């Protein structure tokens, strides 16, 4: 992640994959609320999927994030409506800090996808059948490289190339390195003040 106002471009992400199967995987599963009791995101990665990974006595359960063969994975492959629920950026922060550089899935909840973009993590979509095939492939070939090409909107693995989809604004933001919007939007401060002044509900004083 870059803190230098978005000069870093994210044209592609590649690495081994980890499949997390199931529709409607919500943010409470990705990062349970009790791990939100932190004032920085440091160290949050270890709690990714915590409650589906560990039982009450902290014994590991059956979950891909607990499997050695997926430990170094950086491409997360999920199903439909992934990341639904709360707006907590802790969810993509936890995944990113666990080691995920891109998420490929059938569909994503919007706030989650927006939060991923703010961290420079692409959320790439493909059909249900293509996703399932990719998950099966990753399961059988945990050491195989997966290449997510954001600019070309493709996901390549083995001999297969999926014609994937990246939201237009997201693709542009990542490929051109303007996904960190703070500095960009701050440079328009004058135009912002003009817009504010044109709104009837803004009282004239003190909005310069």
């Amino acid at each position, binding site marked *: 992640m870059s*803190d230098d106002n978005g000069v870093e471009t994210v044209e592609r992400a590649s690495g081994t994959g980890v499949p997390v199967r*199931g*529709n*409607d995987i*919500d943010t*409470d*599963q990705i990062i*349970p*609320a*009790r791990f*939100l*009791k*932190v*004032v*920085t*995101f440091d160290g949050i990665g270890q709690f990714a999927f915590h*409650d589906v990974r560990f039982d009450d006595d902290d014994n590991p359960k059956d979950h891909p994030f607990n499997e050695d063969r997926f430990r170094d994975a950086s491409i997360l492959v999920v199903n*439909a*409506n992934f990341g*639904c*629920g*709360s*707006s*907590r*950026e802790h969810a*993509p*922060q936890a995944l990113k800090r666990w080691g995920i550089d891109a998420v490929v899935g059938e*569909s994503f*909840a*919007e*706030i989650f996808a*927006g*939060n991923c973009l*703010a*961290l420079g993590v692409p959320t790439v979509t493909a059909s*249900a059948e293509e996703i399932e095939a990719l998950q099966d492939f990753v399961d059988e070939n945990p050491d195989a490289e997966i290449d997510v090409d954001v600019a070309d909107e493709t996901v390549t693995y083995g001999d297969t190339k999926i014609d994937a989809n990246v939201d*237009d*604004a997201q693709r*542009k*933001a990542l490929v*051109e390195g*303007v996904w960190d*919007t*703070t500095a*960009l*939007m*701050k440079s*328009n*401060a004058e*135009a*912002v003040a*003009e*817009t*504010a002044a044109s*709104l*009837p*509900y*803004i009282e004239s004083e*003190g*909005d310069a």
Partner: protein
Amino acid sequence: MSRGTLYDKVWDRHTVTRLPTGQDQLFVGLHLVHEVTSPQAFGMLRERDMEVAYPERTHATVDHIVPTGDRSRPFEGAAEEMMSHLEENVREAGIDFSHPDTGDQGIVHVIGPEQGLTQPGMTIVCGDSHTSTHGAFGALAFGIGTSQIRDVLATGTIAMEKQKVRRIRVTGELGEAVEAKDVILEIIRRLGTDGGVGYVYEYAGEAIESLDMEGRMSICNMSIEGGARAGYINPDETTYEWLEDTDAFADDPERFAELKSYWESITSDDDAEYDDEVVIDGSELEPVVTWGTTPGQGIGISEEIPHPEDLPEDKQDTARHAQEHMRVEPGDTMKGYPIDVAFLGSCTNARMPDLRNAARVVAGREVHDDVRAMVVPGSQRVKAAAEAEGLDEIFREAGFDWRDAGCSMCLGMNEDQLEGDEASASSSNRNFVGRQGSKEGRTVLMNPKMVAAAAIEGEVTDVRDLPETEVSAQ
């Protein structure tokens, strides 16, 4: 593309410029801040040596982790740390703060409307997905993540892509004990938890228009559970009557009159064009309860729990897992499902009419021996108003715990949590596994009256079947 809708008009009025990404830069009229998702954003701002650009358009409160029992400082554990960070951040930036000491504290989506901060034709953001609530006033309101909070703090704006607009018309008159909550649960059940992705929902039709503001808030609140980041209702006389009495306008009728003409100008045109339209017959609905672990898994109280194989293929696995977790059987109804906890609270259903309606069911009865029941008013003002009407007495006498304002057991960040595999009848908005603080916990979502009935009977109950008591008959 939609044309002439409230969404189009409010979007256009707030657009600063088109960004190189193709997104629009939108001015933010109101930025609401709470203790859990803001400290990291203030930290990012400091790292970049930036200041809050529009502190006067920003308002803070504590709700997510704040204790709802013992409120003496320091708070227990992380609550104190988050509270003191917020206190310091708002003091430094000069941001108004509805602090518990002011009597104005409460859930961010309750206090904004209550104080008149929330107004039609505004853009409103907050680091909380239920920000969609404010759409009840004809505002364009949506939840944002922490990096976006940083953007809004630093620039007073947000980068967004325009979405499609789906009008959902709910026709007819709602039946007995059928509330706004049931309407939105039904909408989510029909359109799916991801049906709203890419859309903003405009709720319309006589069943919506006849709702009070609190009911409209319950509907817009759960837009996000249907996948829609924002939902709104065109402002009308009901909206204006609410606003007229708020802090913002009570002493300033001139300002009210001035802004009213703006509010009227941003409503959707009669010939507005929508990207999609759905019609639901509101008169057919009955109270809705969830049987599963997503808000889309709901049924009418007298309907049978579906067999997974009868559902669309992509919903079958989720349904099987949900039924296993909830320990329910297809073919049964939810009536008689044993309840351990009754939670009346949350940004969905913890306003005065919610409390009044539930109190009417509770009056003259007792909470079932096996149930722990609690009422968590949405704000300190709601709490005070309820006490002035004697509702607290009704709840206390029946055996409910009467607590302070906050998010509480909706998300289990403070001391109010499910334990073990407890089942709760909850007026909140999410029944996700683990949501209410316990991995094995089970949540059944329903309207406040139904929560009251479940608390009394110790099981999910059709509130319409409860015999009237002397008090309830009045």
